[in-house]
């Protein structure tokens, strides 16, 4: 009796969709029957709405296709239809794990266009925002990563700390999640009373929590087995795929926008840039852990040397005047009216500003033709760029490695799809 092999295909909705996408099996050798597995867009490991089409040979991935865009909201187009300040809430929803840092990056981009510089206290406050956001995002990144490889307790430990970060956000901005804290040329409000004390208390608790996480994961044999030499990114690949943030530094390239192209008052603080050696999942974990410790150090330095003085640019024609003045002064009332109806008067020109966000370099490119509305606003989202290397990483790894790699790349679909 002769035997023949045939493709077994369960025609579920996902497979049909994959066919429609023109998805083809691309391999030369015949390795038996392959299984096309659709992962996501709604799946516990994809951290949002990422969709992977994996071609499996047993447990090994022979081909991977990444489909993004399920959370596309057209933020860039929306930006063209509103004044600069009105776009701030939309930046909250990019990397929704670090809204404070997004607010700051966007404000800095527009301020670069305007040619403004914030007074020292304003810059220090923004540095606090950025580092708080970094800690919050890395905590979730590591927690979710650990949960993906099966260590569920770490997730809850880091979440307890994130709760404190949210309390701090609430103190600072009035909102826990969508902070919308910055305005072009300043902040909505100064640091509230007791904030710095609460912040310092949090940094102490955070370090304890990080030690706990260290004990649970860093020397855990199973965790090492799951992450060492898995999803290795070489230095060349990292540059070729334009990775940024912890994913880039884990490969051993010492590039941090805060150091390479200092903004805010980062040049005043003493901090180290942790880099990895191999570029595998474990290095990415280590880099994030160390970055949180560095952030704590930066936060403590900022609080120790917190300058006094104004927090916003002092130009009533450009930045909303105080409310009491608006209600008592004719001049201020007119400024208020003009700013609210026309927006800030931006010069014509093109500007790009990239900030070191938790996920990598978040860049805003603004093409202005003058007036209160950008002609074109492009967001360089680090999650999107970092995800581009995923098909290369997944090919040849085991199915279980998918979750470790996804977790270690630490992306946010809100930012990726924007």
């Amino acid at each position, binding site marked *: 009796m002769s035997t023949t092999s045939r493709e077994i295909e*369960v025609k579920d909705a996902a497979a049909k969709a994959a066919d429609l996408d023109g998805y083809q099996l691309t391999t030369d050798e015949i390795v038996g029957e392959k299984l096309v597995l659709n992962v996501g867009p709604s799946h516990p490991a994809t951290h949002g709405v990422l969709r992977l089409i994996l071609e499996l040979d047993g*447990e090994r991935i022979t081909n991977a296709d990444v489909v993004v865009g399920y959370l596309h909201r057209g933020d860039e187009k929306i930006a063209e239809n509103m004044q600069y300040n009105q776009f701030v809430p939309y930046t909250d929803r990019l990397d929704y794990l670090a809204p404070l840092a997004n607010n700051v990056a966007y404000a800095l981009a527009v301020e670069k266009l305007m040619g403004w510089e914030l007074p020292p206290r304003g810059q220090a406050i923004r540095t606090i925002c950025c580092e708080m956001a970094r800690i919050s995002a890395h905590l979730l990144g590591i927690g979710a990563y650990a949960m993906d*490889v*099966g*260590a*569920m307790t770490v997730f809850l430990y880091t979440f*307890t700390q994130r709760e404190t970060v949210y309390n701090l956000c609430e103190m600072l901005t009035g909102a826990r999640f969508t902070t919308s804290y910055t305005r072009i040329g300043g902040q909505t409000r100064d640091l509230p009373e007791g904030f710095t004390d609460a912040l310092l208390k949090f940094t102490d608790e955070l370090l304890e929590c990080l030690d706990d996480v260290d004990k649970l994961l860093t020397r855990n044999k199973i*965790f090492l087995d*799951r992450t060492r030499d898995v999803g290795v990114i070489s230095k060349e690949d990292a540059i070729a795929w334009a990775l940024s943030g912890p994913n880039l530094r884990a490969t051993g390239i010492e590039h941090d926008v805060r150091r390479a192209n200092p903004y805010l008052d980062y040049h005043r603080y003493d901090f180290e840039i942790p880099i990895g050696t191999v570029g595998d999942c474990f290095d990415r974990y280590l880099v994030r852990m160390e970055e949180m410790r560095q952030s704590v150090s930066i936060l403590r330095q900022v609080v120790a040397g917190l300058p006094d003085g104004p927090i916003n640019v002092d130009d009533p024609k450009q930045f909303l005047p105080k409310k009491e003045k608006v209600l008592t002064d004719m001049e201020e009332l007119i400024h208020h009216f003009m700013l609210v109806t026309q927006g800030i008067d931006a010069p014509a020109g093109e500007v790009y500003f990239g900030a070191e966000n938790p996920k990598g370099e978040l860049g805003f490119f603004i093409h202005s033709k003058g007036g209160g509305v950008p002609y074109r606003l492009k967001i360089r989202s680090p999650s999107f760029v970092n995800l581009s290397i995923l098909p290369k990483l997944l090919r040849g790894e085991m*199915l279980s490695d998918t979750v470790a790699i996804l977790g270690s790349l630490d992306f946010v679909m809100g930012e990726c799809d924007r």
Partner: protein
Amino acid sequence: MDWHLLIAAGVKIVVFVFLLTLPLVAMAVWAERRVSAAIQDRVGPNRVGPMGLLQPVADGIKFLLKEDFTPAHVRKTFFWLAPTLVMVPALLTSAVLPFGTKLFGEPMVIADLDVGPLFIFAVASLTVYGIVLAGWSSNSKYPFLGGIRSSSQMISYEISLGLSVVPLIMLYGDLNLGHIVREQAHNGWTLLPLWGEGLSVRGLILAIPMFISFVVFTTAMFAETNRLPFDLPECETELVAGYHTEYSSMKFALFFLGEYAAMIVGSGLCVTLFLGGWSLPFGWLTPADTAVDVPFWQGLIHIGVFFAKVIAFILFFIVIRWTLPRFRYDQLMKLGWIYFFEIAVLNIILTAVLMWLLAPGSAA
């Protein structure tokens, strides 16, 4: 047929399986949630009943009331058969576990078989059919992968599991679990030979291979019951819910409870083989031999001791689950075949050599 035996067995089945083991399953679920909450700095279920103790009841009612949905694309017969094939063997294996001495003159074991461990391995290996069938009959990719993983995992670890018990059987020269426990009650537990004949050079040296057996057995037990760090078949983050992805309502609950029942019976077996079953240490309250009738209160204490040990073991299961990450599939197979299989085989040889060298009456 002796009617007396039949009725006694029936009563014992009702009491041990339905009044002790199944409630223990429910309590294990509760303990899992409360202990994990304590580990993770949470509160855990505390609304239903005092300390949330009635939570399992609420869960059960919820499962019963949920729509029992059978997807259109499944193989119905096997889809329906699979959950029972997971639950029933787990409970069946409890038949040969001696969970006490005597109560009302009746030995506290449902079936006093002379091939206890063999019966347990034979029946417990049926569980794998339930999981494979669930994975296959669901006709869906995630359950399919879960089913494949679990069949290879359970078959692989069953070998280590069986081999790890061999040294113990060599030591006791008996396959009747009741006899093994009585031997331990008089002459020291397998892992704790500190009284009776166990407290001798021979007994203490032979405790070393027994300890190796214990480690292999416990680890294989984790793999057999699909508990973390070996929960690959249902590994939440990549396979959604593994082999029971397509199941709902009480059919899902059977898988869920089957896992806990297997865990309890596994703990019971481990306690019976290595930790002296129902016996207290140092021969306290131990009847001289089987013929002696045991006072009612002593019988109750023995049952209590057995379940206390089982519960302690379950807590160990739970703490492990919430502390460790999960293995990868190939690492798991490597661990099973390269380490545990070899260790178990070498351990048998080690035990044989030690027993030969230290045989009573030999020159050494």
